[in-house]
C-alpha cells in the first residue's frame, strides 16, 4: 500500500509533491478523487473523519482551487463524503463499500478482459493462464 498523500504530508509545500503525486494520464480532478478514495480504502480516513480541505488540496498539489472543489463535489454527489456543518467534509458510513464496489466493477469490466487479451496475443493458452494465476496467488 502506498503512502497517503492527502493526510501525511499536509504541511509540505506544493510543487515537488505534485510531481510525485499527479501524473499526466488522467484529468487532475479524477486523480484527486482517486487519492481520497485510496485513503479511505487504506483506512487512513475512517468513518466520520474529516478529510483534507479544498484549500489544502490546492496548496499541497499545487492545483487550481476550483479543480479541487470539483473533485470534492463529485465525491459528495456520490455520497462518499458528506458535509459536517461548520467543520468540513467527512467520510460517509458506507463509503468503503461504495468505493470497493466501483473499483471491482472496473476491475472485472476492464482490467480482466485486457489481461486476457494481452495473454492471448502472445500465445498463452487458457490452461497456462490459469496456472500462472494460481501460482501467483500462492506466493
Amino acid at each position, binding site marked *: 500500500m502506498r503512502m497517503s498523500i492527502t493526510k501525511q504530508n499536509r504541511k509540505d509545500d506544493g510543487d515537488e509533491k505534485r510531481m510525485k503525486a499527479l501524473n499526466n*494520464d488522467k*484529468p487532475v*480532478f479524477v486523480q484527486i478523487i482517486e487519492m481520497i478514495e485510496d485513503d479511505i480504502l487504506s483506512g487512513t480516513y475512517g468513518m466520520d473523519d474529516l478529510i483534507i480541505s479544498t484549500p489544502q488540496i490546492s496548496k499541497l498539489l499545487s492545483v487550481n482551487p*476550483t*479543480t479541487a472543489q*470539483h473533485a470534492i463535489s463529485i465525491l459528495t454527489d456520490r455520497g462518499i463524503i458528506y458535509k459536517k456543518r461548520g467543520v468540513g467534509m467527512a467520510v460517509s458510513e458506507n463509503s468503503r463499500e461504495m468505493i470497493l464496489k466501483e473499483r471491482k466493477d472496473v476491475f472485472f469490466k*476492464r482490467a480482466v478482459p485486457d489481461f486476457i487479451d494481452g495473454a492471448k496475443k502472445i500465445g498463452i493458452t487458457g490452461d497456462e493462464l490459469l496456472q500462472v494465476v494460481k501460482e501467483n496467488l500462492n506466493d
Partner: protein
Amino acid sequence: MIELKNVTKEYGRTVALNDFSITIGQPGIYCLLGRNGAGKTTLLKTIAGHIAATSGAVMVNGKAVDMLAMPDDVFFVETGAAQFNIRLTDLFSAAAKINPAFDMDFAREMARRFDLDMKKRFKQLSFGMKAMASTLIALSSGREILILDEPVLGFDPVMRKVFYELLQESCAVKSRTVIVSTHIIDEIEKVAEQLMIIDKGQLKLYCDINEVDEKAYSVIGSAEYVKAATEGLNVIGETSAGGFLSQYIYDKRIDAGEGYDLSSLNLQDFFIAIVGGEKEALQ
C-alpha cells in the same frame, strides 16, 4: 454583470474586435488569453469605457458603457499605467480620498508583503514595482469589477506568486469579478476559474477552467491506431513524426487502448492548439 453584444471595433482598416459577444455574470477570476494582437487590450478597454466600440452594445450592470459614461463599478489597470509622481503613501491616501470604498488596511498590508517602499515616489520605482503599486490600488479599490491587463508583466517569479495569492485573497474577502489577461499561462491556470480565449478579434472559447482539465488531452501512437481511436471526436490539432501521430482532443475522454497512449493537455498546450494550430478548432 458585463454584456457585450455584437461589438465591433475598427482601427482604420484593422478589425480589433469582430462581432464580439460575451456575457460575464458570475463573480470570480476570469483569465483572458490570446496572442499578441488578438484583441485582448481592445476588449478590456471597451469594457472599461476607455475606448468606444465602432458598433454594438456594451453594458455593465445594466448600464450602457461608452467614453462619456465610464462605468463606476469598473477599475481598469492598463500595462504600464501612469500615476501621479508622489510618494506611495500619499498616492494611497489620495486614492482613499477620491474613493471612500478604498480599503487602506488591505493596501498597507499588501504593500508590506510586497516590500513596496511607501516613501518612494512613483517614478523612482522599478517597472515591476510600478505595476505592483497600480495593481494594489486596483485590488484595494472595493470596485466590483477589476480589469487587469497583463498585471504580472515585469514581475519576478516571487512577486508573481504573491500576486496570485493576493488576487485569490481579495476575491475571497469580497465577491467580485476580476478579468486578468496574461501570457504566463501555466501560472494563471492554477488560479483562474473561468477561461476566455480570444483570437483574431473573436471569442474562440469561453468555459469553466475545469472543462479543460476534463476534456483536453492528447492521443499519441502510430497514426492508424490514433486515427481509429479519435474518430468522431473533436480534434483541435495534431503533430506527426515518422509513422507516429499526436492528436489534440477537446471532447469526452476515451480509454487507453492498443497502439496509443493518452496524456492530459495543460492549458498552455491547449491554448497553442486552439490558436496556433493549423486545423480549425472547436465549434
